């Protein structure tokens, strides 16, 4: 076998710019590390995507809650399945979330004391969602409520509205 003459790695310089101090080894190391870094970030991104489901089998966020006549004036009705209060006041309808803004427990309407109470940590709200006492940090949000063409109430939980907005029927 013939002897091949090869200079030691550390003295091989980039031939285009002699003596700039970057060896071929440094250059390849940096390129490789950069490529591995990009690949690493990419795999974190696709793993995150993989773990975020695209289709959910959860209760619908938009639903019909029946004819307005079902709800007497000056009443608060909880819809257990949809976890929302349908409130009818003399000036109209609004839909209030039944999920406590503290840690997500389902609240209950207490007709005796005219307030919404959370069984988990004792937060209390008025019928319009205004906070009476904590630990809940925020009032209960209002969801968009509208009338369908055939005269049924429709609640959309993805859309929150200001607490002043009421649906006049």
């Amino acid at each position: 076998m013939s002897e091949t003459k090869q200079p030691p790695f550390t003295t091989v310089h980039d031939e285009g710019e002699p003596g700039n101090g970057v060896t071929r080894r440094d250059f390849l190391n940096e390129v490789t590390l950069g490529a591995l870094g990009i690949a690493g970030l990419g795999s974190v991104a696709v793993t995150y995507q993989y773990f975020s489901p695209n289709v959910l089998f959860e209760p619908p966020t938009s639903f019909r809650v029946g004819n307005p006549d079902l709800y007497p004036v000056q009443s608060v009705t909880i819809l257990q399945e949809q976890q929302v209060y349908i409130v009818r006041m003399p000036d109209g309808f609004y839909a209030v979330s039944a999920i406590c803004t503290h840690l997500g427990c389902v609240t209950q309407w207490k007709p005796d004391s005219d307030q919404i109470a959370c069984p988990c940590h004792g937060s209390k709200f008025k019928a319009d969602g205004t906070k009476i006492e904590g630990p809940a940090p925020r009032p209960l949000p209002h969801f968009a409520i509208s009338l369908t063409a055939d005269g049924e109430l429709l609640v959309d939980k993805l859309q929150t509205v200001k607490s002043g907005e009421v649906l006049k029927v």
Partner: protein
Amino acid sequence: MATTLHSALDRLRSTKVWRSIFRRGPASTNRTRSLAVFGNLFLHWLPVKVREKSLRVRASYYMGSITFLLFIVLVVTGVLLMFYYHPAAPNAYHDMKDLRFVVSNGVFLRNVHRLAAHLMVFAVFWHMFHVFYRGGYKPPHEFNWVVGVILLLLTLFLSYTGYLLPWDQLAFWAVTVGTNIISAMPLIGNKIRHVVLGGNIVGENALLRFYVLHVVVLPLIAFLFIAIHFWRVQKDGGLTVRPKDDDGKE
């Protein structure tokens, strides 16, 4: 009788099969005893020599060892429980009820698993306080303290993921509340909660995710860190002994 047993054992030890497994010969000298420890996968990360004073009950109350023992108990009972458990709604709840009322000895296994889990959290904390008040975190043990903190977190995550699996009201609301604490994190909180639960509510996806974390991911990571933890004790020169107990006796 005793002599025949002895000669039978001697004959067994001189067989080719025995000598191919245990290569060091009888553990009659310190050298062969040490070699026996080095050459055994399950012993090699333990110290070859242990000082007598570090074996005194007061030196550690054996809380670290008890924690490890409980971990083994949890692995064994947990694997047995897995044979009857489907991580799906509503089967999970019914399987848990079946384990309690239908499966032979199921209630025993379930309760051993549950109680060992509670005791493990207790033992881990006792171990931690003991190491802390003994100054066992001081050099050269700092890194092993960090490993211990990771193991504490793993223990708590294992407890929390296991809490959802009975799929009863307590489990559901505990995880609802717990994952809502995640979403209190600014900016990324809601995204993390969505990924942890696999949705917006505690449902089937969440149950399956917690199950996989509880039976595969977290125990594997825990095994790895337990091995590092034990090995580190040896590399850092054994357990810390209080100066008061260090009376010079080996």
